[in-house]
């Protein structure tokens, strides 16, 4: 509770009349936490969930292959999305987790697919908890999103095209806001995401604890919420559109050490 009210105060202070006040105050907040993050509680929930039996098969997720072999969590986030031959698909972490829940645990994931992200002020979803836990276990690991399988290349090339896809009543594409360096929307800085510097900064820090929402948000959430702001219909969780954009971002970010869950506005 202390954290919540403290954050609310910070948010109010964020509106003092200085152009960069908002950026500064969140930077200060991040510095205050140092290596700690409120996301740690969500990470712990995720860690517990990873080794809790569930589903019709009553087994844990510990035999789930995230790309580095069954059960290997360390460094796994840094090499996703990637192609999985068992699913014959390029999958990001969140899509892969659902696949493991369904195939390994026999878990009914209909509700989770429908509501993959928690409502503000409610408990974090299993996907958010697991994402926080697994991403944290890649801290310091250089991003290495593969481009060897043809479907991985296809996903990247598709993401690159979709980045420029203008549609909807406002003609917005990702490029509308994220194709120039050093710009901002109102007071919020925008990263250039079709160039390595911005892609590195972005990809390495998702999932993130969103201070303004008091919750861990995943990169799939980021994509879906951008689609909402683009005035597009609902972006389907784990869809090709979402995964391709994440692949596009990840490949551009290759070489950058992971530093997630990050701490964001």
């Amino acid at each position, binding site marked *: 509770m202390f954290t919540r009210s403290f954050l609310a105060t910070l948010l109010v202070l964020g509106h003092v009349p200085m152009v960069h006040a908002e950026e500064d105050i969140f930077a200060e907040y991040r510095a205050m936490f140092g290596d700690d993050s409120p996301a740690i509680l969500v990470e712990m929930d995720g860690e517990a969930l990873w080794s809790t039996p569930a589903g019709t098969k009553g087994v844990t997720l510990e035999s789930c292959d995230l790309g580095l072999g069954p059960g290997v969590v360390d460094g796994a986030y840094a090499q996703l999305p990637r192609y999985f031959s068992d699913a014959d698909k390029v999958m990001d972490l969140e899509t892969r987790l659902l696949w493991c829940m369904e195939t390994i645990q026999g878990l009914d994931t209909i509700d989770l697919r429908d509501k993959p992200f928690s409502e503000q002020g409610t408990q974090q979803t299993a996907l958010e908890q697991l994402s926080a836990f697994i991403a944290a276990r890649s801290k310091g690991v250089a991003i290495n999103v593969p481009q060897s399988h043809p479907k991985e290349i296809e996903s990247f090339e598709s993401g690159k095209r*979709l980045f420029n896809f203008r549609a909807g009543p406002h*003609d917005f594409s990702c490029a509308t806001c994220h194709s*120039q360096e050093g710009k901002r929307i109102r007071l919020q800085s925008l990263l250039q995401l079709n160039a390595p510097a911005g892609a590195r900064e972005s990809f390495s820090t998702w999932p993130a604890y969103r201070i303004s929402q008091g919750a861990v948000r995943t990169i799939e959430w980021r994509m879906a919420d951008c689609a909402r702001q683009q005035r597009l*219909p609902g972006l389907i969780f784990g*869809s090709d559109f979402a995964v*391709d954009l994440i692949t596009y971002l990840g490949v551009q970010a290759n070489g950058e050490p992971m530093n997630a869950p990050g701490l964001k506005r």
Partner: protein
Amino acid sequence: MNAQRTILFILPALSLLLVSCSFTNTGKSTDAIATDRDPVATSFRPLGQASLERLSQDEVQRICSKYEGLEVPAELVAKITASSAQAVVFPMDGNYFGDWKAGKVIAETGTGLQSNDDPSVANGGNCYACHQLAPDEIAFGTLGLPLVNYGKLRGTSEPILKYTWTRLWDSHSYNACSHMPRFGAKGILSEQQLKDVMAFLFDPQSPVNKEVAAP
């Protein structure tokens, strides 16, 4: 603006896009992979007021997606600017100005037409997302040009009023593949709302045209 079209209408446009894009790929092209993968058609569901029809690109969207970050060929620039300018609808009564106070609210309001927005509430113009306007408003974006003292600097001659109205209605009339939404052409703002925004830009009493306050 939400004319009901069938999703089938999307498919020809999409296949055109995909075909045209395949020519712009270089090096490790995906052309070798036989695939009927279609991320745009398979990745969305209708949500709130945002129907799947929104994924159907018009010609401007299709061309501008293809040439994002690149130089748009001169013949396409000519085509877009001409067709956009030709379709501009000027105020019926010849009066360009509404209420600057209402225009200020429109400039400050970022909601409207999102899947979670209430369709019964008037859309915002969100001018401040990209433009600096009133000098005393510090929460302005930088994607668009600063418009401080817009009317004061330009006056209110007929050509400048027509130019500004056209910019708001469909910016592609002057700047093919502009990133600015087509507020009139796409029905984001009503004629009255556009007049209110015009007043916000030009009225001598509007904060847009006040002096920059001393720091």
